[in-house]
């Protein structure tokens, strides 16, 4: 498990706006995807989620998950196209995770009338080792 309880809460609220059709399974897929990233990338994603979670408090006196869907959407549009490059980067990066988790998984394929793989082969869920995170100093 990569997401903490607070991060999971944030990501669910994010997903509700960004990919409205996503269900709870997508949270688990996204969590797995994030956990396979190098430690430094995971740290940046967590930092973005922390900032995006509390930033609305300074305007709406509520954290991100406590906002209405409309206000969450307005806030995310500001992050997505606003003047702060790091916020844009964080938003579009987390959006990529959400979209890959949703559309990369067969739960979404029926809605697209997409038949999925041509070959019938087992799932491959074991992730390789990132050598740079695993090993010590060169």
């Amino acid at each position, binding site marked *: 498990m990569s997401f903490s309880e607070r991060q999971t809460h944030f990501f669910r609220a994010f997903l509700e706006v960004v990919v*409205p059709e996503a269900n709870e399974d997508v949270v688990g897929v996204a969590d797995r995807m994030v956990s396979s*990233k*190098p430690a430094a990338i995971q740290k940046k994603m967590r930092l973005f989620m922390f900032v995006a979670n509390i930033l609305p408090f300074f305007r709406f006196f509520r954290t991100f998950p406590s906002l209405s869907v409309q206000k969450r959407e307005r806030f995310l549009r500001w992050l997505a196209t606003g003047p702060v490059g790091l916020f844009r980067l964080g938003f*579009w990066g987390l959006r990529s995770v959400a979209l890959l988790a949703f559309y990369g998984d067969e739960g979404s394929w029926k809605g697209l009338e997409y038949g999925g793989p041509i070959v019938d082969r087992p799932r491959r869920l074991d992730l390789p080792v990132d050598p740079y995170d695993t090993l010590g100093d060169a």
Partner: protein
Amino acid sequence: MSSPEYDVVIVGSGAGGGTIAKRLAPLIEKGLRVALLESGPRYDRTYFNQREADMQSLFWEGGAWLNPEGTLQMVAGRMLGGSTPVYTGVTFKLPDDVCREWNVPTLTVEDLAPRFSRLKEEVGAAELPPERINKNNELFAAGAEACGMKTIKLEINVRGCKGYGFCNLGCASGAKQSTLEVQIPSAEEAGLEVIHNCHVRRVEDGRVHAEVLRAPEGSTPNERPEGKISLSARFIVVSAGACSTPALLAASQLPNMSPTLGRFFTVHPSLTVNGTHPEIVDSHLNFPKAYYVDDFSKSHDVYLETAFYYPGVTAKNIDGFGVEHLRRMKKYRHMMAIILLNHDAATYENRVAAEPGTGRPVLEYQLSEASIRSLVQGQREAARVFFAAGCTEVYVPSAPDGMITRDQKDDIDQLVTVERYQKGRIISSSAHPQGGCRMGTDASDSVCDPYGVVHGQPWLRVADASLFPKSSHVNPYLTVMALSDRVADRLIDDLA
């Protein structure tokens, strides 16, 4: 820690390392001791299940290796075969004018021509038969020709392609003539020793320091125990690709290295854009790439090629989020796709560095204003092709809300603008890293000589795209093989 002895250790198993291994095969049969080390696992073709969520494991950093400024994500294979099992099979020879522009002594059009012919034969590179060309490609050709563009057929390195598609997730039938299928098995038959999951941390004169990592489930088990390993070798050939080779050399802290180590790194920044057609296109079926257009190469440094991506990557490439994004994605089966490739300038500032301590490659690449202008022009030209092919909506990220409708098709140049290429929001991708160990004659402005010998280190050779002094303009696979063939020539002479 074990310490076997080899004549040659090859680090990396992609187009460069595979070519070296195959060239050494006749000598291996006669007793030359050669090991090929690959950081990634060994998968065979039955591992490739065409599911993008699962197959992220085939790539460094899950297929999204970001530069620090967040404008580019590198896609590089991490398995036996390097990137060759997961690229589309496009096989270009280096254009003659680019070869002359490189201006590397002895590297001439005449020197390369017979190598290209032989190597193309080896990997079966040819135009696709008509039955392999899918609807996306047919529509692209019709649209481009209606716009007055000249479409050219790509040469693809497949033998007996069954049209399974999903080529960028590994070829499920083994038809793609990657080093995993061709060069490595051939050299293994001769006696090459392959050590997969073997991550090299440092090289020095006569020695390679590495570590054998855990083999993931479903991959070929390790023959050696996990843990540190040290191999002695007369010659070391580093073929870890243009992201990893410069970083490995930097992490090795070799004496008297050129100040250009890691520099002049280019990537062919690219964008994949889509248009929705009234008819079902199903661009994921059959072979995804058959045509390209180079009409804008000289004027705007950009190529247009046909493309295909699965739903997750397509969703990521299409601008927006929420209900409107969902509406666009519902048309997935109607989508055409074009990839735009910019041949970017090689500059001293763009480089690959090694992270202190770990040696992890850091891609210190800044997307230039010139590249942004190229990618914007590419989006405009792709939009014209989509509409000429009959599309009703076009999704290009530098348009307002990332979309142009058919009734706006006469305003493409006004709608798709450089100002709307917002960094951070638009992330280009790259599968063609080049440079970082550029060839030349002088150590003050190059890392290797024209035959891949690292200046001042006669025991150390480089054989991959990091040798390129500037962009190759075209997909680099065959050029990497041809340069590696030259590296093998010199190595074989030196072994004698």
